């Protein structure tokens, strides 16, 4: 359709085409490309022994809001279940469902338990920056192991899957969300002051941190300064005088960085010990995955994130990753439409079948046409079946 035809669309047709904010139709070749990328990500995750599970799209609100789901309360679409008369929610994140499965139906499965999943999630709120309200998540959870090896494995499996899907120039930002609360708790500040300080730390607003923290400013501003390339950041962190709990968290970080660097020496690893926004439910090492686009441009958001959290009322610990397919696709080249062969009406079925067996997709003519080449071009095929051979169209097909 040309621009002038577009502007002439009738109001009624426009109303029919309009979708609610944040929802969209994905057409060819993008829909097929999305499925291909998901298959690659899942294949590389299941190859590491992560077993695929499939929870429902909708479940009771109370279970969606427990544990790691507590932070999604404001983003869940709710509906009343006419059968049970209870409130149900459409999942806004799938991690909470994995936690539920691991601690209920798979409670007696041996630990560590490895699960993976793919599915759509729906969110009530979107913002200008991330307007999509329906997202596809691919993820994996490693439940029941406290080890640094588990922290590293989750990052490494995510990285391997993304690389296999064709994402280049990955970088991993590792963080320790509980670190700042641990340090702040030892300072004995009033609740108000502590909240202000956390807000300032979240924004990396060094000036405000220095004003608010008083005597404690040097430690906090050094923590803020330890953001960046892993080696430089670790050097800063090792020189800090921190309470024992915070020190233990940083030692864990060091071990995980070493494990990751040993397994993926070429991977860019940065540290951000004070990052907390959006990672509130994490209780240990957490991470964000960033990538460059196919033309070297910065992909605006994270392609994935994850980290350690508690399940089952805090009695068990787990770590996991979630990959955001919309963002992963931005890091990949635009998909190329699959080329098809037009089969004129009346061609024997076994001939068309042989073409498909040879790996081509066919488009069957349903009625006789005078000019098979013209019909093939009209339908967007690159080739047509002529005298028992695949013939290329003279000019490039219209796509």
């Amino acid at each position: 359709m040309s621009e002038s035809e577009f502007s002439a669309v009738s109001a009624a047709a426009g109303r029919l085409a309009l979708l609610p904010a944040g929802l969209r139709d994905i057409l060819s070749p993008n829909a097929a490309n999305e499925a291909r990328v998901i298959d690659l990500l899942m294949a590389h995750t299941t190859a590491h022994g992560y077993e695929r599970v499939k929870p429902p799209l909708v479940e009771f609100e109370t279970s969606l809001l427990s544990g790691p789901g507590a932070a999604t309360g404001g983003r869940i679409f709710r509906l009343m279940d006419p059968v049970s008369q209870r409130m149900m929610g459409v999942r806004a994140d799938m991690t909470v469902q994995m936690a539920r499965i691991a601690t209920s139906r798979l409670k007696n499965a041996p630990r560590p338990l490895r699960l993976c999943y793919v599915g759509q999630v729906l969110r009530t709120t979107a913002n200008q920056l991330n307007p999509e309200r329906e997202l596809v998540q691919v993820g994996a959870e490693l439940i029941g192991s406290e080890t640094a090896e588990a922290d590293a494995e989750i990052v490494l499996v995510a990285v391997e899957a993304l690389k296999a899907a064709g994402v280049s120039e990955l970088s991993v930002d590792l963080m320790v969300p509980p670190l700042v609360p641990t340090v702040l708790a030892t300072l004995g500040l009033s609740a108000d002051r502590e909240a202000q300080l956390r807000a300032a730390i979240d924004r990396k607003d060094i000036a405000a941190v220095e004003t608010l923290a008083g005597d404690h400013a040097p430690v906090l501003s050094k923590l803020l300064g330890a953001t960046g390339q892993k080696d430089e950041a670790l050097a800063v962190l090792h020189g800090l005088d921190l309470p024992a709990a915070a020190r233990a968290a940083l030692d864990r970080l060091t071990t995980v960085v070493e494990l990751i660097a040993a397994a993926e020496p070429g991977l860019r690893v940065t540290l951000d010990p004070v990052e907390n926004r959006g990672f509130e439910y994490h209780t240990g090492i957490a991470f964000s995955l960033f990538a460059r686009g196919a033309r070297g441009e910065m992909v605006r958001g994270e392609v994935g994130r994850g980290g350690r959290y508690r399940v089952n009322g805090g009695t068990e610990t787990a770590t996991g990753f979630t990959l955001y397919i919309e963002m992963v696709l931005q890091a990949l080249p635009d998909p190329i439409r699959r080329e098809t062969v037009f089969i004129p009406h009346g061609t024997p079925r076994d001939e068309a079948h042989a073409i498909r067996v040879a790996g081509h997709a066919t488009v069957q003519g349903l009625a006789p046409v005078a000019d098979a080449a013209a019909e093939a071009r009209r339908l967007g095929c690159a080739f047509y079946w002529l005298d028992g051979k695949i013939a290329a169209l003279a000019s490039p097909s219209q796509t």
Partner: protein
Amino acid sequence: MSANEKLVLALPKGRILKAITPLLTRAGIEPEDAFFDEDARQLQFATRDPELDIIRVRSFDTATFLAFGAAHLAVSGSDVLMEFDHPEIYAPVDLNVGHCHLAVAAPAEIAKTEDPQRWSHLRVATKYPNVTRSYFAARGVQAECIKLNGALELAPNLGLCRRIVDLVQTGSTLKANGLVEIDKIADVSARLAVNRTALKTRTGPINDLIGRFQEAARAA
């Protein structure tokens, strides 16, 4: 990393731009001459550093360019950063210029007679609807914000609303319009802000620029 895009620094037009020019010099950022020509139609400018470009945008748009990663760094008023409180934006350096504050103001006679405890709903004219709504919400008042882009001080006297939330520098505009300041919401100054993804994927050059701005602000 290969095929790096140029880094883009967004600077706000107007009041802050004049104040930060010496700071840019001290930070070693030398824009091409056209940048200083107020009448230039050009919006994007090269600098002496081939890896750094400057764009000149409206003050309120600095945060938007930054949040979307269209600019990697920006000089932005802390008022603008408060209004667009994106988790994608960090504000590591207080440039210590462009000082003023964000305040609630009202006509003098209303301020004298009204009891704020009794409010449940209030109409407020402002350029900062998000800041205003959360300021009043924290006090249990629902603020219905009327978004204006200028001449806010006219609004109460013409019956548009009873309160305004605006930047106050000297207070003389308020006074000339018969308004008094009721409460200060926040101190405002210019900040160097950076995009989260840019900081984490282009750590070296961005930290270098942050360091230079820090030095430049300290030397002021």
